[in-house]
């Protein structure tokens, strides 16, 4: 019952590697094509932004010129018109005004457009309202979202799945459906046209989003880190602050930007629930129609100024965002 075995395989040791790690010309070409396509797509999506910038600085009488003007003498007419209340002057009044030696820069800009400044517009204070309301609601929704996401991620909560679904379900109704009931409630609660009213509403709406997003990020942080901190002599809250928080920064940044953009752009509730005191910029911009025809350059200026804060925040948090929005795509 003796069995013999025959040896197969290379008889001499393999001393030279034949593996080729270099990219093939074809895949290098594909990489370049990808970059070109990405650039083209980025340019296409930037066209509206370029157009807004153009329109914001074009004089009113050239806004609707056909064919559209790309090259023109930039003017601050739109910007000044946005921040001031003005009226159209007659030819004779214009001539009289031109000779006035005490004209300010602002007056002069408007005079060139045949207008006279009569006061300041509410846009600046509306922009401040937007900053206050969007900022406060973002901070609140990220703060509370972080706490409850941590609880959902780490503790054994009875019915956690149902609770999470319930939280998410607040997102399932389109806002328009609930505006009327909320309007009625806010009126009787005295929250109509108040900053607190809108802050509260945006916080509630963003909370579902922030809980879900942050829970995903916190789930990714291994529990061992906190456990190590616990046995090292820290309380649960200290461990959260010193260990979880620094590691969740990416998620917090991504959530902040998403919440901020929602609160900043929100239109329907702001239109229904505010009038003068707490009116934010989004419902205010369409109402800048102007006295003599639609002042497109003024509206474009409003949009341009409105875009700037979000761009700044997004830019400041960009290094976290890159990891944040692709989160979940790669498992470690």
């Amino acid at each position, binding site marked *: 019952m003796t069995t013999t075995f025959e040896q197969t395989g290379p008889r001499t040791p393999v001393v030279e590697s034949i593996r080729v790690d270099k990219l093939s010309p074809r895949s290098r070409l594909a990489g370049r094509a990808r970059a070109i396509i990405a650039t083209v797509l980025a340019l296409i999506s930037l066209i509206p932004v370029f157009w807004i910038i153009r329109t914001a600085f074009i004089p009113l009488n050239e806004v609707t010129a056909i064919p559209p003007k790309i090259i023109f003498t930039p003017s601050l007419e739109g910007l000044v018109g946005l921040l001031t209340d003005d009226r159209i002057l007659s030819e004779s009044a214009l001539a009289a005004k031109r000779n006035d030696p005490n004209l300010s820069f602002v007056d002069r800009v408007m005079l060139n457009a045949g207008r006279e400044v009569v006061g300041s517009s509410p846009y600046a204070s509306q922009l401040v309202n937007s900053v206050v309301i969007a900022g406060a609601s973002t901070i609140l929704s990220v703060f509370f979202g972080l706490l409850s996401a941590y609880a959902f991620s780490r503790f054994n909560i009875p019915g956690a799945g149902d609770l999470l679904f319930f939280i998410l379900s607040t997102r399932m109704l389109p806002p328009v459906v609930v505006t009327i009931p909320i309007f009625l409630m806010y009126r009787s609660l005295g929250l109509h046209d108040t900053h607190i009213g809108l802050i509260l509403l945006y916080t509630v709406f963003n909370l579902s989003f922030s809980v879900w997003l942050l829970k995903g990020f916190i789930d990714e942080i*291994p529990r*061992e*880190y906190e456990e*190590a901190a*616990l*046995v*090292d*002599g*820290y309380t649960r809250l200290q461990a959260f602050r010193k260990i979880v928080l620094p590691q969740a920064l990416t998620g917090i940044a991504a959530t902040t930007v998403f919440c901020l953009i929602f609160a900043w752009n929100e239109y329907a509730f702001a239109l229904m629930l505010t009038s003068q005191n707490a009116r934010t910029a989004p419902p205010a911009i369409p109402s800048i129609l102007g006295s003599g025809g639609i002042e497109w350059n003024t509206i474009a200026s409003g949009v341009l100024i409105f875009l700037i804060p979000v761009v700044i925040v997004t830019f400041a948090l960009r290094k976290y965002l890159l990891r944040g929005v692709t989160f979940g795509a790669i498992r470690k």
Partner: protein
Amino acid sequence: MATIELIQVEKKFGANYAVKPMDLTIRDGEFLVLLGPSGCGKTTTLRMISGLESVTAGCIKLNGRDVTWIHPSQRDIAFVFQFFALYPHMTVRDNIAFPLQAQQVPRAEVNRRVDEVVKLLQIEHLLNSRPGALSSGDQQRVSLARALVRRPAAFLMDEPLGALDADYRETMRAEIKRLHIDQHATSVYVTHDQIEAMAMGDRIVVMSAAMVQQVGTPAEVYYDPANLFVARFIGSPGMNLIRGQYEQGQFIFPRGDRYTVPANWRPALDKALNGAGEVILGFRPESGKVEVQQTDNLIKAEVYASDMHGGFSMLHLDVGAPNVVHIRANRDTDFLMGERVHFGLDPAMVRFFHPQSELAIRREEN
């Protein structure tokens, strides 16, 4: 430094036991190893001692103080995790200093103790790097340093070598052993690797299916396993176990070979089996000896396979299908497959087990 007592400690998840009620006393300065296959409850036991997992019943005492419901941070124990759990956003120095900062130790004292412990572990050159940049062995050294710096009452280690590369493992094993002797600290060490357990433990607690199977010194669990599980689990390969008949001082192999059991076993076997019956014979691979010539009390077998292990050869002998026994032989021995051989057993090294209860049959002490 500390004595740890577990009194009827148990852990249930729903209706299932993760750890069945167990009693255990870990002596002051002892290196105790919790050993078992994955899912046997050894890590849960360790986590209950640390307070990271709550007990469902029972009582844990540290130096006589009841700590069953005390927060982990108040227990004065250090925990070393399998995946190190070094805080990735801090430098090595900050990681090691972190437990001291919790106790509000003055800065100068923190620096002094960190320097002391990094010197002990020879990781001075790593102080300013981040954990992510270190090799797995160095990461584990840092996490040991973090545990040591506090001078806790007890060290709990959850498979600290499990995530290391093979070549670091031997080195770190020796380092941990030296550290233990140096610090004389009570240590509880969880592992699934029985070689590690044998090499490091003062005592080993073998666990399986949420139950403690045996508590004993490495020699005890190796030579006198309490039951079939321990016999199989300890050793590589485990103990050879053959089911056969016992009658009149002889063990009958499945194929009919008769093996006369050592005289000092006869009274115990007669008593346990009421004179005759089915029994399981066990012996370690190194207690068998292969002979080519048939002499007295040898068992017939055919060579099934033989492996060269460098220092020795492992022979796999067919003693009647499906029973293959493993016997350690001299490395010069060379047998062909299917060759007929005989093997004898060291009379001091044979063990017997009860086939139903699976428990070891014990000799009366003489």
